[in-house]
């Protein structure tokens, strides 16, 4: 496959395999961490893109998930807390021939790096941002995070956390993101399908990946994984398809948002058909609110995928336009421009 997002990236000559993308470094996450599943999923997915491995870069910040680049046999940059989107922006904006992936977590992306995340999204630099959301601080040993539910009892909040969490999908849509999706660490097939669309999108793609921290927040997404409950709460979004799940359906609500109703209670034409390419983000935003109150219904899949020129492309075009208009810069002409005089 080769979507627009990969159009400028050189193609690999031979066939690549999962093994090509595994580095020789020992993986050091806690046994049972959801990060293992995501790493395996990404390593097995990368060969499918068919791009040169050396033109692939993984950039991360700080946190458990940010160790990720060390385990990928590509170029990698493990940077500092929260700054990966900024560093990746400079890299991607100056090198449109690279496929740049940002690996971040809920603390890294939404707390300390919140500013960089929202600006990367609005700018639409050609980045794929994978946000591992485990709703807890893992590396610092278990404080609540900006996605933890209100009242979370942790070491730093013995009487419960007070601040309302971010919904990363709502936040991204509010930040003018062109591509926003959610998937789950344990569902490799779905993860692959979302990564495929994210990579094909030219511009910034934000993929929230629900990831279980079995040490500090075990079972946070259990209801989405347990066969007894998962089908009743997981809303699978597919472009062009009516939004239905189990015996439920989604329709427009009188409040201006969307609501879940028993399927038998609505006419077929009342059921909302998902349009990920809708230029108006209102419905995508409304869908992102379905999990309120916490985790009643959780949509996964691509909420929004709208094409617009990427920042790096526009930047290159300005350079080309300036050169086309006046020719390539000459240092001598530059220095001698303006008012000069000669002393002999």
């Amino acid at each position, binding site marked *: 496959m080769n979507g627009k997002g990969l159009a400028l990236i*050189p193609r690999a000559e031979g066939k690549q395999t999962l093994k090509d993308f595994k*580095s020789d*470094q020992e993986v050091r996450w806690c046994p049972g961490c959801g990060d293992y599943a995501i790493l395996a999923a990404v390593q097995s997915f990368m060969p499918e893109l068919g791009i*040169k*491995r*050396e*033109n*692939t*870069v993984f*950039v991360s910040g*700080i946190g458990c998930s940010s160790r990720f*680049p*060390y385990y*990928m*046999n*590509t*170029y*990698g*940059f*493990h*940077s*500092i807390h929260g*700054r990966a989107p*900024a*560093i*990746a*922006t*400079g*890299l*991607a*904006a*100056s*090198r449109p*021939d*690279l496929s740049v992936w940002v690996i971040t977590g809920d603390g890294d992306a939404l707390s300390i790096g919140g*500013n*960089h995340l929202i*600006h990367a999204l609005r700018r639409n630099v050609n980045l794929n941002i994978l946000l591992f959301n485990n709703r807890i601080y893992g590396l610092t040993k278990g404080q609540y995070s900006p996605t933890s539910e209100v009242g979370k009892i942790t070491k730093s909040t013995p009487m419960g956390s007070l601040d309302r969490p971010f919904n990363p999908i709502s936040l991204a849509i509010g930040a003018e993101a062109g591509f926003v999706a959610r998937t789950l660490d344990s569902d490799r097939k779905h993860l692959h399908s979302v990564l495929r669309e994210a990579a094909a999108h030219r511009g910034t793609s934000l993929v929230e990946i629900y990831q279980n921290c079995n040490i500090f927040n075990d079972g946070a997404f259990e209801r989405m994984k347990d066969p007894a409950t998962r089908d009743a709460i997981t809303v699978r979004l597919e472009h062009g398809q009516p939004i239905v799940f189990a015996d439920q359906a989604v329709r427009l609500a009188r409040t201006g948002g969307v609501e879940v109703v028993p399927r038998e209670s609505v006419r077929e034409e009342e059921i909302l058909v998902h349009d990920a390419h809708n230029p108006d983000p209102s419905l995508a935003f409304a869908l992102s609110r379905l999990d309120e109150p916490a985790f009643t219904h959780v949509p996964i899949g691509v909420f929004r995928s709208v094409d617009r020129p990427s920042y790096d492309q526009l*930047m290159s075009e*300005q*350079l080309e336009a*300036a*050169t086309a*208009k*006046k*020719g*390539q*810069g000459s*240092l*001598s002409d*530059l*220095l*001698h421009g*303006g*008012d*000069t*005089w*000669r*002393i*002999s």
Partner: protein
Amino acid sequence: MTKQVQQLDRVIIRFAGDSGDGMQLTGDRFTAETAEFGNDLSTLPNFPAEIRAPAGTLPGVSSFQLHFADHDILTPGDAPNVLVAMNPAALKANLSDLPRGADIIANSDEFTKRNLAKVGYAESPLEDESLSEWRVHSVPLTSLTVKALEEFEISKKDAERAKNMFALGLLSWLYHRPVEATIKFIESKFAKKPDIAKSNVAAFNAGWNYGETTEAFSVSYEIKPAKLAPGVYRNISGNQALAYGLIAASVQSGLPLFLGSYPITPASDILHELSKHKRFGIRTFQAEDEIAGVGAALGAAFGGALGVTTTSGPGVALKAETVGLAVTTELPLIVVDVQRAGPSTGMPTKTEQTDLLMALYGRNGESPVPVVAPSTPSDCFDIAVEAARIALKYRTPVMLLSDGYLANGSEPWKLPEIEDLPDISVEFTTEPNGEDGTYLPFKRDTETLARPWAVPGTPGLEHRIGGIEKADGTGNISYDPNNHDLMVRLRQAKIDGIDVPDLEVDDPSGSARVLVLGWGSTYGPIAAAIRRVRRSGSEVAQAHLRHLNPFPKNIGEVLKSYDKVLLPEINLGQLALLLRARFLVDIISYNRVRGLPFKAEELAGVIQDVIDSE
């Protein structure tokens, strides 16, 4: 009427008015005329941080000082010979700097009861005896301008606004400046508003003609062109020179320039300038904050660009963690700090040399960074190329410490020959350097200790770098105690070993016992003070540091070969602290932190006192 023409060897003019009066523009144009005429010159803009402080008040006064001469000069001058005061506030704010006998050209139209009251004058100083020490030329600039523009179909407000051009015309007449370029400048500046263009040209010409016909000015002045070294010259400010230096570094290194920057006074003009030159392949990125500015520059450097970030002190504080990341990942990066008065917001438009210790030590861990500082506005060009040379050769972030005085001040610049610029080209690593075809990103060059630089897109050299301590050679994560000790020492040794030219000492007789040392923007005032001291018969040596880390190898020897070392700094003795610690030399500090450059006269006195106290 034939007017008398008097010859002068040098003049210092200060244009002062409300921040909305266009004094900076007026000064810039007079400077351009003076440069074209061939005088040596030096300028000092001085303006409030507020874009438009309340009209007519003391905080709203903006000024521009120009020193020009028939010989080479080093500073914008201590005290103006001529003050152009566009209102009572401008007069009051600048009067204390004016030596006895100086000329005051005051816009009498603005000396109204209301404007006088705003600055606490009970009566007009133009009409009482309070200005008797000076030669006052009371000129109704506003009404003369409005009258000259009667025939134009423009509003009274627009007509009044042209009064700065009337003043410029008058001063241009008074000092025999060439006017063609100014007329062209006005025409192109207001190309889209032809009425405004024509009226401003008319006001400018009216000012000139007024000088020629009025009896208020009986003498005009000639200052012959200076005999500077042969070559092609242009007038240039520090920020513009710095931007050009970065472009030159990009050309000479063969690397595309990537600037990540967040607007901040007084550094923003470098961002503005570089954003104009996209046809050099320059990418300018206005980031969401200071941290993103340096982060993007470092990301671009990882991709093989010449990464640069430009800021002032508060921005350097924010960038510190990323600079540390550049130190440990050993990637080239240029961090330009156009210093301003601090701490915190301080005085954004005023100059200071107070970020030296922050540049050297303002990061966590052992985090050595080379530091360079330009001496004059035009030296900002050379120092930018030098910063790039060090960054690229040694794969390290480099701190470049300019300041507000250099950034906004200007001087004639003898243009370098392109072929004389250093070759700072870089070869990326493209082949494995380890056994069995592996790539070792931290296997160092034995001479420079620089690590190889393999950029994404290079097959077979895929590798990971980061902020966690790296094993020597492989760059893999390492918590080994001895490895950390080794890496800390290697990073320090690399910076300590940077090739820096020896410190040159100006000691004509070779028998001076006092050395005056400086760094950065104090070069001009110190050199001017040294001239005065020598003219009065004393011997004194001068040396000026452009490299602050590492120091030139001979600095200890130089310091120890004089009985006394005087070190003026616009801080509380930051370089003195370092030199005392490193060389055990009893430095004599002279420190003033007023947001202004030193005056030559002031320093001459200090130097003489040190000499006399021997």
